């Protein structure tokens, strides 16, 4: 187990490095550097920017140095918690990002829990009642969730939540709680707002999860040990829970790897529509204004969230499944 853990940790380092390299390339993609964009913007607004200030910024952010040096400065800065400077907000990126990252994390985490809670019973039902009306309709519902663009579903749900429950539009809590300290009322308000993004983002992942659980469970149910147990008169429900279900549960943990990027993607666009104070809207805004340091940091954060999440899911899987713990690889 220990050697597996070390191995997994060591793999993460080059992965994160490669992720940072790609992010850096994306930051550099737009023509010109942000400083010239920024200066041009200021001048368009009629402000004079002193040459000294430009030279100072240029030197501070190392725009005068070659590309690879800029990259190393950026990575080294990140390791020390300096994520660069947002020109849009005139603040260091780490301050702008602040607790948006935390909220992104909360939304993603709740969504994954939601996906599990919904797809587990449905998947088991679909597998045990294969080709029944219930199986077909649930599968179809899952497909519908997969096919409906998240953002539109979010809008419609938001509208109905507003009309039927009087939930305030947009944001993650009622405006009156915005600057208030945490209280029960604020918590309830957050919960009232949180379910919409969670349901909306969850719909796309749920369908896939249901299908995988169903397929895995169906495979298990056809095996001989199940037939034997059934022949010996074991109660069907007990039989299901005791053996095949446990075997079929692997994808729940293993799929975090593919679920997490999907959830974070979904969260990005849904947050834009619902104007949640998470990373999504800010990333979009940063991209629109070509505030590339900010955009790059967000991209980096999101990728990091994914890499770490996958790492944790691998650990959980290893704890759960001795085949992985002992052989260091996933069985197929």
């Amino acid at each position: 187990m220990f050697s597996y853990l070390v191995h997994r940790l060591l793999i993460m380092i080059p992965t994160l490095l490669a992720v940072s390299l790609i992010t850096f390339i994306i930051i550099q993609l737009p023509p010109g550097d942000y400083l010239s964009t920024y200066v041009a913007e200021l001048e368009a607004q009629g402000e004079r920017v002193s040459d000294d200030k430009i030279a100072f910024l240029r030197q501070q952010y190392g725009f005068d140095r070659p590309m690879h040096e800029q990259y190393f400065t950026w990575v080294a800065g990140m390791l020390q918690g300096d994520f660069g400077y947002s020109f849009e907000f005139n603040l260091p990126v780490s301050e702008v990002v602040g607790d948006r990252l935390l909220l992104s994390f909360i939304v993603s985490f709740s969504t994954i829990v939601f996906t599990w809670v919904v797809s587990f019973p449905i998947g088991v039902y679909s597998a045990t009642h294969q080709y029944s009306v219930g199986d077909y309709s649930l599968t179809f519902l899952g497909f519908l969730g997969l096919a409906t663009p998240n953002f539109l579903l979010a809008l419609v749900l938001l509208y109905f939540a507003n009309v039927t429950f009087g939930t305030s539009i947009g944001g993650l809590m009622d405006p009156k709680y915005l600057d208030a300290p945490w209280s029960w009322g604020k918590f309830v308000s957050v919960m009232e707002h949180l379910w919409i993004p969670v349901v909306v983002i969850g719909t796309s992942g749920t369908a896939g999860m249901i299908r995988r659980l169903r397929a895995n469970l169906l495979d298990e149910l056809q095996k001989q040990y199940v037939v034997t147990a059934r022949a010996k008169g074991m109660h069907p429900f007990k039989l299901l829970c005791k053996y095949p279900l446990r075997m079929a549960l692997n994808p729940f943990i293993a799929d975090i790897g593919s679920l997490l990027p999907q959830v974070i993607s979904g969260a990005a666009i849904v947050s834009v529509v619902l104007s949640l104070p998470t990373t999504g809207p800010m990333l979009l805004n940063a991209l629109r204004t070509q505030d590339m340091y900010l955009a790059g940091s967000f991209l980096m954060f999101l990728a990091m969230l994914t890499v770490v999440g996958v790492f944790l899911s691998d650990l959980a899987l290893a704890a759960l499944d001795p085949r992985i713990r002992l052989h260091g690889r996933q069985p197929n």
Partner: protein
Amino acid sequence: MMPKDNHFVSEAPFDPMTVEAMSPEQERFFMASQWTLMWYKLRRHRLAVGAGIILIALYASVLVSEFLAPYNLHTRHTDFIYAPPQGVHLFHEGRFVGPFVYGFDYRLDMNNLRRVYTPNPNVIQPLRFFCQGDSYTFWNWFEAQFHLVCPAEGGTIFLLGTDRLGRDVLSRIIYGTRISLTVGLFGIAISFTLGLFFGGISGYYGGWVDNLIQRMIEVIRSFPDLPLWMALSAALPVTWNPILIYFGITIILGLLDWTGLARAVRSKLLALREEDFATAAVLMGASPGRIISRHLMPSFMSHLIASATLSIPAMILGETALSFLGLGLRSPITSWGVLLNEAQNINVVALYPWLMLPVVPVIITVLAFNFLGDGLRDAADPYH
């Protein structure tokens, strides 16, 4: 005299092959090629066949969008801004008139400054079919005015309402099909090529090449795709013309999607390259490229096509999401996502819900591709 034998003895000469002989139907089935067998199997999958027909119809509509749409893409009706959908009726006061729509009465609600359109039951505007309407240039080839459906002279036909510039939503959806459906095809072509290439060399060579490519795939997969798509498409220069942007977007969509396909190719190749026929090809001096493409690929091509079909919807949804956010395609290029861009705020849901209708073809297409892909996947292994 011998006693009469009760046994029946056939007079016909005995043919030892009778047991093995097949009826013509059996022969047709057993001699069928792999692709024919797959077709037999797919044909039994009703849902997949239905989905396939819908997709063929949608793609065929792309060829004649100009003819199907009642109006042109950019025709504006300044008197009918945010007009609601007009219903098609057959009977007027119990009398059969044929398909017609009621004309609109327009009034500005002075309380909330909303445009209010009410159908006027006294104005009957019969639809015309196969008629002369807006003139268009068909495929940049010749001028024509021929439409499937036109409004009555001086009348209107907004079956799905109009948008903020008074453009017919139905016509725009029909034109948008052209872009939305082809984005998926171009994207999948790119991702298919990349997936075959990287998966091919990764699986065939193994060793460090394999390792490197697998790490690369892991890195790409650890990016949440939508934010990465957003970042990449935001990096497309604003000065590019819409056609270039369109290709840029398809390339971006394809660039990130190939990893799943590459993994599938790799795992199949790893197993197949140990087979005797692969060794035989090596011994006969075939080049790796030829062995992969001529000997190994065909045996799992059907699986690849099935999984490619299943990944088209993700691209269509991706394009829709990007355009919705305003980072993807831009006017005058019109896709379903660009149309949905108009439905960006809650007011639309409350006041002009018909602007959300472009989502219907999106859902239909995505569902159809999923069902077809499922059917293909089941049929991909006809010997199973």
